[in-house]
């Protein structure tokens, strides 16, 4: 037996009419319960919206596109869930003991922006030479742990991101420690040792500034008004004028805080250096003897046409053993002479400390000069750090940008979800009303 379309249409129309009639009869029940359901769904979504939060983390530096940290090591976004970051976050929130890093990590999800779950084989993509994607933006989502119910989710996310930034900046970005003058106690140090220390510190600062000047020689700080070149010049002045002046003053006056100890140290130095000098000179003489040993009849060389350092034609010769021995003899002699200079310098200082008569108030003056040098280098260091900070900000916009997710009406209340829930409820309540009506008709 066949069934016609007309029959179906009739049947549907009849069912629809029955449904409408039943719903009409109980419209207040339907409307009266639907409104609280919508309200409840919206309240839930509102509550839910504040249980979850997300931010977009964007990497603002050149090497990010190569999957690297600013220091050239491999970038790893999962570090945001590292114990170190999470433990610091928990500690900052004052929740130590209430929550473990692992528990918190389970509520954090990370997804790369623009990178969906891969449906196509990665291997195929690479084999076909297709462009592969290195993410530079990530969405970090956090679903609040029940232990943290008293704290706003956005605040937790802020603390988390601050801790991640701290680790990021401390471990992977450019570090300014080299610019910082490392202060030590000079009271026990001899004046000339202080001078060596200052030289060491100033040279380190200079190297950093030189690197920056090579990178961007024209950048000028808005706060300090300095460029890296101008700061470098100041360090040069410190090394070549201030420090030299101080050393000369100390040496000329034969100043020493503990004469016996200092001379003892210099003498020991000289003993060692003499020993070293003797070693080098011994070596030098051996190489000379070796050259003498060579018999000219069996050390013939071949002339080879080549070019010199100016790219002009030049007739060179193949090297023979004598050449190597001569090079080594020259090298050891050079080293020995450097050692000799140190010995002479130490002897001069010993002599000065022993014999020179210091002018009146020379010690106080040296101390004052020392103080002034500390102030000078500290001042340069501070300005260099400030200039460098501004430069990093200018160059990288602080490496990371954290953008919180937009919270507008539709995203807070998730209107689509609310509409779907309401629709489902409407269907259920209508079905219930119809069944109720049928039941009523039956009895």
């Amino acid at each position, binding site marked *: *037996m066949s*069934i016609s379309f007309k029959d179906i249409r009739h*049947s549907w129309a009849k069912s629809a009419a029955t449904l409408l009639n039943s719903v009409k009869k109980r419209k207040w029940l339907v409307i009266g319960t639907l409104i609280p359901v919508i309200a409840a769904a919206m309240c839930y979504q509102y509550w839910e919206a504040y249980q979850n939060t997300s931010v977009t983390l964007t990497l603002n530096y050149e090497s990010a596109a*190569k*999957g*690297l940290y*600013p*220091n*050239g*090591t*491999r970038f790893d976004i*999962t570090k945001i*869930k590292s114990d170190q970051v999470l433990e610091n976050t928990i500690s900052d929130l004052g929740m130590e003991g209430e929550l473990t890093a*692992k528990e918190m990590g389970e509520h954090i*999800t990370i997804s*790369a922006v623009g990178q969906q779950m*891969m449906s196509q084989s*990665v*291997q195929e993509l*690479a*084999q076909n*030479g297709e462009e592969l*994607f*290195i*993410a530079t933006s990530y969405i970090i989502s956090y679903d609040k742990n029940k232990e943290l119910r008293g704290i706003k989710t956005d605040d937790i996310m802020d603390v988390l991101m601050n801790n991640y930034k701290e680790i990021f900046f*401390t471990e*992977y970005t*450019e*570090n300014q*420690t080299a610019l910082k003058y490392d202060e030590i106690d000079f009271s026990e140090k001899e004046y000339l*040792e202080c001078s*060596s*220390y200052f030289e*060491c510190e100033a040279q380190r600062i200079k*190297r950093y500034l030189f*690197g920056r000047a090579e990178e961007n020689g024209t950048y000028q700080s808005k706060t300090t008004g300095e460029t890296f070149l101008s700061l470098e010049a100041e360090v040069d002045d410190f090394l070549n004028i201030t420090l030299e002046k101080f050393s000369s003053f100390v040496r000329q006056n034969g100043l020493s805080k503990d004469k016996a*100890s200092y001379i*003892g*140290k210099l*003498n020991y*130095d000289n003993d*060692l250096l003499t*020993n070293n000098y003797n070693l080098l000179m*011994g*070596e030098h003489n*051996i190489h000379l003897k*070796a050259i003498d*040993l060579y018999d000219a*009849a*069996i*050390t*013939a060389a071949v002339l080879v046409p080549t070019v010199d350092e100016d790219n002009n034609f030049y007739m060179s010769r193949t090297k*023979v*053993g004598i050449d*190597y*021995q001569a090079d*080594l003899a020259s090298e050891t002699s050079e080293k020995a002479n450097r050692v000799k200079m140190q010995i002479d310098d130490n002897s001069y200082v010993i002599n000065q400390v022993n014999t020179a008569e210091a002018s009146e108030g020379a010690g106080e003056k040296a101390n004052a000069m020392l103080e002034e040098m500390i102030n000078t280098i500290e001042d340069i260091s501070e300005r260099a750090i400030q200039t460098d900070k501004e430069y990093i900000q200018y160059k990288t916009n602080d490496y990371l940008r954290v953008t919180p997710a937009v919270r507008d009406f539709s995203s807070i209340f998730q209107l689509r979800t609310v509409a779907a829930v309401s629709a489902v409820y409407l269907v259920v309540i209508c079905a219930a009303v119809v069944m109720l009506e049928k039941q009523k*008709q*039956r*009895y």
Partner: protein
Amino acid sequence: MKSFQVFRYLKRWWILIALCSCVAGLYMYRYTKNNQEYTAQTIIRFTNSGIENGEAPDGSKLDVSEIFSSTVIENALDILGDESGVDAIRKRGSVTEIIPSDVQASIDSKIENGQDYDEYYSTDYLVKFTAPSDKSGEYAQQILDTILDCYFVFFGEKYINQSYVPNNSTNAIDSKFDYLENAEIINDSVNEIIQQIEYKVEQAPEFRSASTGYTFQDLMEKYNYISEEEIPYLFSDIINNKITKDKDVLLKKYQERIVENQQIQANAQTELNENLNIINSYTEKNKEGNLYYQDGNNKDENNDGILDEVYDDYLYGSLSDQTTSYDKLIERYVSLSKDDSDAAVTNEYLQMILTAFQDASQSTVDTEITAEVEDYQAQIVKELDSLYSVLEDTMKEYNEYLGAQNVSILLSTVISEKINAKLYILMGVFVFFVLGCGGAIVMGRAEDFIEYFVFLDHKFRLPNRNECDRKIEAYEKTVFTNEFVCAVFELRNLASLNKEKGREGGDKAMKKFADSVKLAMGGYGFIGYNGGAQIIGLFDKCSADKMEIGLELLDQLIKSYNRDNPEYHIEYAAGYAEAVRDKIYNVRGLISAAMKNREDREIDSNEEKDT
């Protein structure tokens, strides 16, 4: 038999269909959850020179399986605090070389044609890690990323940078060594570290650690400062104040060293003499022969003789050490002379120490000075420890840096799932929905057949006695508190019709009677043939008033029939009972009451009255 109505069957079984679909969906969800596996994968590229020949930066054979080596995995698990175990992770990781499709096609073609082909060493590798089914995709990503981080460090340490010199100066603290020995330990350790840093300065002058902020040059200067300005005080204080824990032992040790050095000198002298003799003999003999290589038979102008060979060897990288025996003999002479000279100079230093301590008296050593020296030594060691930790951090980062410079990432770690959960769930729901619908149709239709063959009286097209019994049984436990009517209809003259018109005539009248009852009261509920001349009705949508209307309609129908078929005219009786009105609340009671209430319907007299 009932007509084939798909919607009727679906309507009947829709709850079951919906339930099955939901269960299928849940089952699929559970299945995918239990069997889901996430794979994190990324592509790395080795960029070091020599990789095109399958070599690591140090020229050794590159073994990419080291990415999932025990050392690397163990480091990664340590960082993550994961206790999964090395083997559990290792068996889930894989490294696959990526051969570009054009290269692969070329190789395949050569193999097909039986031609030789050069071995292709891939620079790109696909690195995968599949997490167990109880772990998330993020876990897979975290494990893979950490393994790669550790591998980069491992790669830097193993193939590019060498491990660094340990800080031996800590051994000088609370040791049983003498003061001078401790000072020597500290000094040697610092010198070794300086030597190593010097090498790094040459290797990577530009490298600045992000974690410490220092370059190798910065660190070398710090070490140099300690070595030049601080450690000498330690030595001078010890030597000048003749501080020793045990003078005799110390002196014996240095005396022994002097003796050892003297032996070295003596040996070196002997060897030197022998070496000089060899050199002289070698020189004399070689002067007699021809040392120059000349191919006399080949006078071709283009032939540059030995130089050509040297150039070729140089170009093709096969040039090895060709130092002559003569040079080697001279080198040996230099080496032996150095041993002799070094031993002599060292003895001068040792003699100086001996002289300094020779006249030292154990009892005269000022304990205050000793304490000062100890403090100063502890201060230097502390300073060196702190500096060494900076050096360690710098070196660690340098290794990571070297790793990242030689192995680059081509793709951020992506996660793929083994099972498409949404698709599986949708498929489960859909399949069970389709199967459910099919089943409902088959079952519904089968029920129609059963009903037709078992529960239908084919003659009168009414449910038969069996169906009537089933219905009554179904109502057996129902207490009717609402309108419910049981009715009995009986064809009175069936026996006489059978007798007069034969069985066919009786059946015809009975058929007509059944049709009329159905027409008049079919909307009220169930109507069935109860055997003989009886029809019963179980009306759940009927009241006494409705029943009266129905009976009147039935009378009209029978009257109309009788008028047209006087030879088969119908006489019938009807009776009914209504639950609320008659206060009978069970089905059997209502049927009995209906039987009792049964009375003949006077159709003809009605007609006369109407007329």
